[in-house]
């Protein structure tokens, strides 16, 4: 329980820290998406229902802060015109990518960090890709300039670069609170998600 409270505190802190992180103009206006990175780091360490709960909380607060209610001109005339990225869309994409990252949870539990770090970067890119596709769908045309690909790659790279530090912090917090991230008894049979059966 203490671990989950600490994890929630970490997420809250990431929201406030995100405000101080600059946009890197030299890297095609990419940025370090700290909130997403913290969420994915936690998503590797916690069970599936907790990941869904965190996706709900993180996505809701993210949209409350960063949602832009832009309606495409074609849809503006419609009486029930929806924003291009509707409120709650972040919850959906965090849950999808969070479920994906849970696939490498057994590896993380065995103390292997290479693939989890790669997956954190990849899932951050995937979040942006899903948003961009939704925007392009509303505007009726998919534009893929080279700058866009660079922006995606750089954002993913920034996330992957800081994720080892966050994974380390998470394991330390787990040790302090006696929350078992690592599977200690490897002789026992493991189920698909690493839980002992």
């Amino acid at each position, binding site marked *: 329980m203490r671990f989950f409270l600490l994890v929630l505190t970490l997420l809250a802190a990431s*929201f*406030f820290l995100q*405000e*101080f992180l*600059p*946009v890197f*103009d030299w890297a*095609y*206006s990419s*940025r370090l*998406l700290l909130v997403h990175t913290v969420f994915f780091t936690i998503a590797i360490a916690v069970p*599936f*229902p907790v990941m*869904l*709960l965190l*996706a*709900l909380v993180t996505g*809701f*607060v993210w949209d*409350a*802060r*960063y*949602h*832009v*209610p*832009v309606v*495409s*001109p074609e849809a503006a005339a419609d009486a029930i015109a929806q924003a291009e*990225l*509707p*409120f*709650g*869309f972040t*919850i*959906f994409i965090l*849950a999808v990518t969070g479920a994906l990252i849970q696939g490498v949870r057994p590896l993380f539990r065995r103390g292997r960090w290479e693939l989890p770090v790669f997956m954190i970067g990849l899932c951050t890119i995937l979040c*942006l890709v899903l*948003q*961009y596709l939704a*925007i*392009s769908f509303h*505007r009726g045309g998919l*534009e893929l*300039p080279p*700058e*866009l690909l660079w*922006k995606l790659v750089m954002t993913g790279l920034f996330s992957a670069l800081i994720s080892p530090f966050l994974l380390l912090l998470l394991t330390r917090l787990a040790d302090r609170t006696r929350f078992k991230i690592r599977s200690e008894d490897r002789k026992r049979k493991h189920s698909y998600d690493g839980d002992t059966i």
Partner: protein
Amino acid sequence: MSRLNIIALIVFAALLIWVTLFQPEAVSRIQSGAMVVFEPFMKASTRLESGVETVGTEALSPVQMQSLLADLERERDRLKLEVIQLDEIVRENNQLRRALQYVEKAPLEVVAARVINRKPSNWYSTLVIDKGRSHGVRVDSPVIVPVGESAGLVGKVSEVIGENSALVLLLTDEMCQVSAKLQNSQEQGILGGQRGALRTMPNLRLRYLSKEAEAASGRKVVSSGAGGLFPPDLLLGEVISFEIGAIDAEATVKPSVNFEELIDIFVVLPVMAEEEAAAEIIEETATLPKEDS
């Protein structure tokens, strides 16, 4: 999949559907609440950013500051005189217009605002300002800055987040489309920015020009006023290239406003029609507590 996971998934799906069905008013209320929490951090971040930018710049000595102050005072006095002269000219102009039975052109009513957060969104070119509902800012209010002798268009208010904050969609965004014309001509088109907020200062595209348009490099582009959203003759940029297509022509336009250095901007407030203003006054009077007789 365990039973617990399935139950969690069903509950999650139900909550997600509930959130996505929120009405725009409810979303606006949630965002206003979030802004109350995040606003101090946004302001602190902007202060920090400007503090970092000034590090390394040479501090002025007291003598230099005294000299600068004297210069500024002289400039202020000169501008005061200019304003007095201009007021006289405006009065005279309006008298002549009345004599000719012209409709008087209402001056733009603006409110000064400060940028408190830059580029908050991943995919939209936006910024957050410190003026909101309580200052009369409305959705779609144009946002301008002085550029030389004229007013340059920055963008439009996309959302009034709270009493003291609003989100501005910049001219450099694809979704901020302005009816524009080449200065001193009737050649009109639609000016728009770039998708994805990939650069701070992207070139703009002036589309749907006629093939015969005289869009030489360096020609100024201004708002046409068509559609009524943006006032006419706001400076938008200048043509850097012109391409003729199969049906129409398109010009590439360099924005006149430097979007990287925006600090103080002006929001153009909506001008109320006389009847609307009168109705508002009556409404306000009706809600006032009655004095004891």
